[in-house]
């Protein structure tokens, strides 16, 4: 940013905000829509103003992250209003998945461990959500989500205890065994988990009336519910990203990166290896449980077949392709997940494959598995790493 822009930033921002407010009230059909539109524009302008200030990120890192999160949420929620039900549903699953990916990215990126069982941890959250909602239908959804997160963290602690002494492949194999065992664990408690058919939520979560009046006026009831659930998923994902960004930058995050790069050095400067490893594992399973609970909320039901070993493998593929160990990688992976089904259907129709044929039904696995191998061999930091690398090259060229 050049100096002139820095000096005149505030008046320009205020001017833009006034113009945006006036325009949104003029163009909107009702006053409520006008209020909603002007909130969306003004929040975006305020965040951009703060973020473009020179030195703001360095001086107020937490506020800067909050502003970036708010900007992302603002834009994402704004977009959901213009999408149809099915696109919104995809976006919601993508947002939930990105939370799970964030947890795995933290585990691997921060402490160098790997888990092949995050699909099962998602299942823990998903089933706790459904079971709790069936027994206590009046609990607000955000409280139920928190309960699911806590349960995920407790299971993570139980499985993470041996992780304190394990290195790489042992932990991966143990979490794989958990992922394979999870469906059988569910069947063992079939009186709670509903056996093979799973559980339905007793009531579909709907938007509170004040929110409905402000944001969702004029849309059909069915669309409203999808829209509301999508926005809930996006907001929860935003909060999760905000927390994770701070955790990555905090003392805990830094000490974990030291463990990843050199565990002996980490021990010598007084970091407790077992504790750091188990904390990383708990954080990742709690995040997975949160994503799973959102899955239940979005689908209004939960089925045990969703949480098979294949899901854990999908999670691993997505985060590796997106960029393991990075925050933006989780976002990229979530977006890929949201629209992968559409892309694969598109490929099937373009190539003229028989949609019921063997090849078409396995295309998902072939593409994801192939991308997983290629990414790890040629770009181990995924899309996020490749983009960052390109960006640095462009910048160094333009500077020098």
């Amino acid at each position, binding site marked *: 940013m050049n100096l002139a822009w820095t000096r005149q930033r505030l008046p320009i921002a205020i001017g833009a905000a006034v113009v945006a407010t006036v325009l949104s009230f003029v163009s909107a059909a009702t006053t409520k829509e006008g209020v909603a539109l002007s909130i969306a524009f003004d929040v975006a302008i305020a965040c951009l103003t703060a973020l473009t200030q020179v030195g703001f990120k360095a001086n107020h890192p937490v506020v800067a992250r909050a502003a970036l999160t708010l900007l992302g949420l603002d834009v994402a929620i704004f977009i959901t209003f213009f999408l149809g039900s099915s696109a919104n549903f995809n976006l919601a699953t993508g947002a939930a998945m990105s939370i799970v990916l964030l947890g795995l990215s933290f585990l691997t990126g921060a402490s160098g461990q790997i888990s092949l069982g995050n699909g099962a941890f998602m299942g823990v959250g998903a089933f706790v959500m459904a079971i709790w909602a069936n027994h206590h239908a009046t609990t607000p959804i955000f409280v139920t989500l928190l309960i699911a997160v806590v349960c995920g963290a407790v299971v993570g602690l139980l499985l993470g205890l041996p992780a304190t002494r394990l290195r790489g*492949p042992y932990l991966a194999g143990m979490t794989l065994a958990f992922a394979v*065992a999870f469906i059988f664990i569910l069947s063992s408690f079939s009186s709670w988990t509903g056996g093979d058919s799973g559980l339905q939520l007793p009531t579909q979560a709907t938007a509170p009336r004040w929110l409905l009046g402000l944001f969702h006026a004029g849309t059909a009831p069915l669309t409203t519910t999808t829209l509301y659930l999508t926005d809930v998923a996006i907001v929860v994902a935003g909060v999760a990203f905000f927390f994770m960004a701070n955790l990555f930058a905090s003392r805990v995050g830094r000490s974990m990166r030291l463990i990843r790069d050199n565990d002996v050095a980490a021990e010598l400067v007084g970091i407790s290896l077992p504790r750091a490893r188990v904390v990383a594992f708990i954080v990742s399973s709690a995040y997975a449980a949160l994503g799973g609970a959102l899955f239940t909320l979005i689908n209004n039901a939960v089925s045990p077949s969703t949480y098979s070993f294949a899901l854990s493998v999908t999670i691993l593929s997505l985060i590796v392709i997106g960029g393991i160990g990075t925050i933006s990688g989780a976002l990229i992976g979530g977006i890929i997940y949201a629209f992968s089904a559409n892309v694969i259907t598109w490929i099937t129709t373009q190539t003229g494959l028989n949609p019921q044929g*063997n090849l078409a039904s396995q295309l*998902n696995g072939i593409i994801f*598995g192939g991308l997983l191998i290629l990414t790890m061999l040629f770009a181990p930091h995924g899309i996020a790493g490749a983009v960052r690398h390109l960006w640095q090259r462009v910048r160094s060229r333009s500077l020098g």
Partner: protein
Amino acid sequence: MDPFLTSRIVSDILTGLTNGVIFGMVALSLVLIWRSTGILNFAQGAMPMFATYVGFALLSYHWGYWPCVVACVIAGLLLGGLTERLLVRGLYGKPEINPIVVMVGFLIVLEAVAASIWSSTPRSLPSPFSSFDWHLGGKPLSLSPFTVYEIATALIVMAAVAALFRFTKLGLQLRASALAPEVSRLLGVRVGRLLTLGWMLATVVGVITTILVSGGFFSGLTPQVMDGIFAYGFIAAAIGGLESPVGAIVAGVVLGIVNQFVDDFVNQNAVIIIALVILIVSLMIRPSGVFAKSVQRRV
């Protein structure tokens, strides 16, 4: 006739032994690769599955059982060697998550490609021996000609691997290149070639396991046939210690028998849960396995 041989306990032990040698073979193939290349091969179930499909595709050309088995073994040798040369070679010395991720990717690709060529409906393989249990005094003994064939084959394979490592010059070279690759190279051992050979060997052990598993009366060959067995094989290898072939086999057999008792006296769902608990407890007590000597890490 002696009622003891058909009692519940003996029949559980016999059934458990049959499953146990299978787990032991999977564990053995994992240990072979781990010891020579320091990689835990997550595609150790899928690679043999693929080779078995390729070999038994010859059934449609009216080949018999034994020629098909030979074809499977050749396919396994090729697949194992090519995988090491093309996929794994670049991964040595990389962070330990890289080979894990690549082999998981390979697992997905192999299963998906196998399902797209041969579909995922179970394919029953011809069996050279009957799968029906012998009867003693009117009661079934939990042994059939096929299970005897399974156990005998497993024992022969294990003995052959042991003999290869202990008594042949090739085995000595394999051990040397796993233990001290640099020194072996200086002494004229072709380490690169031997690593390839190690992968080929492990894949063949896997192929024989897969043929035994999917030849049974109740199973049949599917792309996912080895998924669950791989999990048990890994549990056995981890309990026994990834460094120890004998430990892996013993742990596999014990795990098979324990599983059968849990299946019989508790229920079927509890089997993998109990196995998981055993794994966690044993890893907490002895992180590098029951049979492994503790190794000091060099800094």
